[in-house]
């Protein structure tokens, strides 16, 4: 069962995200800020498959530090960043630093939870491919 960490400073938002991802059949943990997220990321073994984090929490770019912690722990952990409308600069920066994708929370007329569920599937797929490629390479290296 894929293991996902949801990071958001608003309890309602964490609950809504967790409920929907639970429903998709994932095992979901939650953190209320980037410090708690770092603690969970560092203590997790094996590491999270995916982190879904809000961009603007205690700082306007807290999401970037969650992204950094997740990738420092496991280069193959996928990260999806949630942003408020208009915060394109930070979203683009998170992509540049290796996030899988970003999602605007408030686009009128877009079913954002459906979109999130879809992106989560795609991200997990990419992680599986990357991890299995790595395993095969390790296996090859081991035989030599």
């Amino acid at each position, binding site marked *: 069962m894929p293991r996902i960490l949801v990071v958001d400073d*608003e309890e*309602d*938002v964490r*609950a*809504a*995200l967790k*409920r*929907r991802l639970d*429903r998709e059949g994932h095992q979901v943990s939650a953190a209320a800020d980037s410090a708690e997220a770092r603690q969970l990321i560092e203590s997790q073994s094996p590491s999270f498959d995916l982190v879904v984090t809000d961009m*603007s929490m205690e700082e306007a770019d807290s999401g970037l530090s969650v992204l950094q912690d997740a990738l420092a722990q496991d280069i193959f952990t996928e990260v999806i960043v*949630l942003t*408020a*409308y*208009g915060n394109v600069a930070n979203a683009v920066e998170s992509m540049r630093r290796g996030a899988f994708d970003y999602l605007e*929370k*408030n*686009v*009128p*007329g877009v*079913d*954002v*939870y*459906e979109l999130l569920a879809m992106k989560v599937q795609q991200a997990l797929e990419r992680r599986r491919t990357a991890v299995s490629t790595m395993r095969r390479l390790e296996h090859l290296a081991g035989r030599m």
Partner: protein
Amino acid sequence: MTAMKIAHPAGTDSSSLLDSVNALLGEAIRSSSDVESVLQGTLEAGVRLVGGNRGFLALVNHESGELQIRCTTGEGWSDETRRMRLHLAHETHRGITGHVALTGEPYVTGDVSSDPYYLRYFDDVVSEIAVPILGPTGQTRGVVNVDSPQPEAFTADHSAALGALTNAAAVALTMEGFRARESALIEIGKSLTNTLEVEAIASKVVQVAATVLQFEDCSVFLVDEQTDHLVLEASCCLFSRRIGSTMYHLGEGLVGWVAQNGEAVRLDEPAKDSRWRSTADVIEDQEVGPFLAVPIVGREKVLGVLRVFRRKTSTPWFNNRFTDTDEKILGTIGSQLGAAIENARSFQRLVRAERMAAWGELSARSAHMIGNRAFALKGDLDEMRFLAEALPSSEQQMEVLALVSSMENGIERLEEILREFRDYVVATQVTVAECDLNALLKETLAETLPKRTKVTLRAEYDGKIPTLRCDSRRLNRAFSELIENAVSFMPEGGELFVGTRLLTSEERAALRLPHARRWVQIEFADQGPGVPEDVKGRIFRPFYTSRVKGMGLGLSIVKGIVEAHEGIIREVGAPGDGARFLIFLPVES
């Protein structure tokens, strides 16, 4: 009014004359001197020196052309005779005093009964002597007049002695003028450095200038940078009820000429000048006398015009034209005013920027919090929809799903409002970069025009448009708003025209755009109902809307974005014939 004590022996010997002149001049040039006391002293010393029994000193009012009595001495004066003003308007009824004022020459008569000029005010007068007080450029400032009951009482020596005394009075009057100018200029200087509101600065200047230069009207006009109109900012007198209104275009009338050329204009008969434009609703052309207008100069350009004029005098013998000194002083005030206005404007820009930053911060935070709440609610509704699908009865399921849809619609509206609000706040925060306007417009059209629509597009792109410095993301937002508007007002179809054009200098002039730059025009014209005449003035204001969508910030966002690019937007369509929006963006020179 206190007379000075001037000690002198009886008679007209030269030592007592010297003593009197010496005392008067000494008083005249003292910084604490009282001009009234010097004038009174001049008159009393004069009467004593020439042995008269009565006398008066009158000064010329250059605005009205009247001689007004300022001091009297001797017997027989009543308040009524003191108030007497000698009108110099009539050639026949001006008396000896008027005659001396007009000729600037002393006059002596030994028998008033046969004198052609004499007007009788007192019964005992037989001889009379009158001497002019002459100003620095030879113009008459006033007259000293002395009577005697003796025949042939006055000689040429007496007029020479009186002349020496009146020169002392002339010095006092001239010094008084200089001191008034000096303190007025100091006052202007002080208020210019202490005041940070353009309006207050301008009205202070017209008030203070009134004490320096006598005039009928003093007005400050400022150039509106958007339209090149000269708007009346302050006026002390005649024009005060027109404050705030557009008076001239750049280059129009004498004021417009001064603003365009940055040079002063000084004319004795402005209405005869080919550049003159009448303002007969305020003052008739034939009443306008000497005219002086100087540019208000900023660091890089002319900010406006400072104008004064006098009414034509009722007497043709006195001229009240402005002098070289007047022009120099007004020019100095104009430059000081220019510096002060620029100072005030940059302070205001700073305050506005700070306020916008605080407001932007507040809005960004609240928009973020509301957005998060909406996002959580969408999550709850998502779950509700999921649970409803598991309900046993399809009727219950339909009811719950209908409610969910209604709430989802509500949240969608809310998010539209949030988006508009956020766009409004950031409209003026532009980050410019080189941008190809035609490509940007094509891109926006491709994104914004609905795939299936009855609206047809006609586009004309001018290939000669140079690269602009602009924020392409913000302009994209502005253009898409106008395109969406056009489409939404043509539900039954029609043509949307979109065009770009580099304006020629003739077109720029016809559109009255500031001439310092080249301009690109971007046009959006639809065949919808157009903008009714009565709302044309309101459409760019916040919260104006004729649609249910959003909160009515759309066109004010467009205006904010255009103006942040130092551009101009106008709606020029004929009502009933479709809306026609023109955006003008400046091309960097």
